[in-house]
């Protein structure tokens, strides 16, 4: 090979090098694809297996057995937890967007003393370790009578969704042209009208992005959901999935766990794939621009 290649024309050597590089490149792409998709594919594969088939290892989907899905969806507590998750995430998004929008108006459009400090506080809160507020928040939630109540979770989730929403919406709000606001003021619009009638329609794309990210964050949250709820019918899905157990630690019902996991994940994956571009722009606006 080496001797041959020495005698080759330079152009042939170049061609071989080119071909090798291309092959390596496509192998890399293949590796990235497998690495990203395989675990979820394997979860889907497992969820379609009967409990007897579970213990033979397959790489391809060989059977379509829906019994795991039937078992999961016939558990009222799981269905209830799906509903709780949906409720908690939606309400969290609504509150974060509303308060985030008003705050972003102030932070993005008005020059005032203390603005930098407020922005720093918002950023600092988004870095909070959730455990650091756990005991204090537990007391607050007890005092508000929201323990073991999905609304208590909505309240606690704003700790991570609100700072993020404010931060990203402020970034977008600053990019809007000044003339718009001046025109609104000339027309005699109050700040509230300016915000909701002039800016909000322009900010829809940014709101969809931040809303989605907040939804995903709330849907996936685990520590607060585990700590602030007690009974099965008040839990959210991550807690429900984490607490599925079998007769002993060594006999977990893996088929059922995977079916529940797929049910919880498919809506998210679909959302992410549809809104791919928006999510990427939101993530980079939150991190790179911030």
């Amino acid at each position, binding site marked *: 090979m080496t001797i041959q290649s020495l005698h080759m024309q330079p152009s042939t050597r170049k061609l071989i090098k080119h071909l090798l590089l291309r092959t390596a490149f496509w192998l890399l792409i293949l590796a990235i694809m497998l690495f990203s998709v395989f*675990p979820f594919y394997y979860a889907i594969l497992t969820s379609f297996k009967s409990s007897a088939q*579970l213990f033979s*290892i397959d790489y391809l989907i060989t059977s379509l057995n829906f019994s795991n899905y039937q078992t999961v969806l016939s558990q009222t507590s799981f269905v209830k937890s799906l509903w709780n998750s949906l409720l908690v995430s939606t309400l969290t998004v609504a509150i974060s967007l509303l308060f985030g929008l008003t705050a972003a108006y102030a*932070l993005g459009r008005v020059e005032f003393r203390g603005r930098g400090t407020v922005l720093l506080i918002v950023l600092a*809160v988004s870095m909070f370790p959730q455990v650091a507020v*756990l005991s204090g928040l537990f007391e607050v939630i007890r005092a508000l009578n929201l323990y073991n109540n999905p609304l208590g979770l909505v309240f606690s989730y704003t700790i991570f969704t609100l700072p993020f929403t404010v931060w990203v919406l402020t970034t977008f709000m600053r990019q809007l042209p000044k003339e718009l606001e001046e025109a609104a003021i000339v027309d005699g619009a109050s700040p509230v009208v300016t915000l909701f009638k002039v800016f909000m329609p322009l900010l829809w794309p940014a709101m969809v992005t931040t809303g989605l990210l907040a939804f995903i964050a709330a849907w996936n949250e685990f520590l607060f959901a585990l700590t602030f709820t007690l009974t099965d019918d008040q839990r959210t899905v991550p807690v429900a999935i984490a607490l599925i157990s079998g007769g002993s630690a060594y006999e977990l019902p893996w088929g059922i766990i995977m079916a529940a*996991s797929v049910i919880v994940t498919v809506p998210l*994956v679909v959302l992410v794939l549809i809104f791919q571009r928006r999510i990427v722009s939101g993530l980079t606006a939150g991190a790179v621009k911030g």
Partner: protein
Amino acid sequence: MSNTITQSLAEPVLRPRATRLRLVRQRTRTAWFFLLPMLVVLAAVAGWPLLRTIWFSFTDANLGNLTDYSFIGIENYLLYEDGMWYGVLADRLWWRAVWNTLFFTVVSVSAETFLGIIVALTLNAKFRGRALVRAAILIPWAIPTIVSARMWGWMLHDQFGILNDIFMTLGFISEPLAWTADPSLSMWAVIMVDVWKTTPFMTLLTLAALQMLPSDCYEAAKVDGIHPVRVFFKVTLPLIAPALMVAVIFRVLDALRVFDLIFVLTSNSSDTMSMSVYARQQLVEFQDVGYGSAASTLLFLVIALCTIAYLYLGRKRMGGY
């Protein structure tokens, strides 16, 4: 009133000083009014609970009854009694958790950054099906941490796990490994899952930075016949370094507070216990709010130091803010 505003905007030069001052003051008042809801929520959900947690760390409060407790000074942190040291700072398990958290953070964030850059460079090239690959790498990011912990828990199963099967078929290992139970492997299992889950985040941020790079210096490098690897280290890396730095700090802060992945994948095993898992165990399972709050406060201090470092670095970049 709207009349004055109209005038002042239409004829800025003629605007009297007093009117302008009043307008500025009014706008400032509106701004604070608009900020109020957010500030109240953040105070109720973050500020006040944090202060209470710090306060609880100096008391012997119990989760069963949060109203009846007494101040005990720093006994939760450190106490010397009958020739023995007590408190979080004297607990070997706490230091184990600190070590685990730091080890986890350093190893997983380094691996994610390394892989993230490689994947981002790959996706930055133009090829058929790029959109498909870019969509595919988002999947691990979209999957809830709990679900990925469960999924990998099954793939890493010691008897029926597919990973043991793959590795045995390929000849890397001769007998199945107990990934999540073996003390020498469980931390690596946790790191593996975390790298899988968060590499997309690193990739996306790196990719965004790469796509903002000016193309002219690459053309210049190409004309001069400089090797691509050299171009990467001399041109690309320094240019994306600031964005990469922000992404790394984001991930570091996130990794330092890791909880759910470890809790679900290896439960309360001391081999993988992180600071958050330790604090929650004391607080909720052992009901010892005082002691657990002391651990939480220490974790908060660690992260606060990192945040200050980040803000210091970020300030330089933010400029306009």
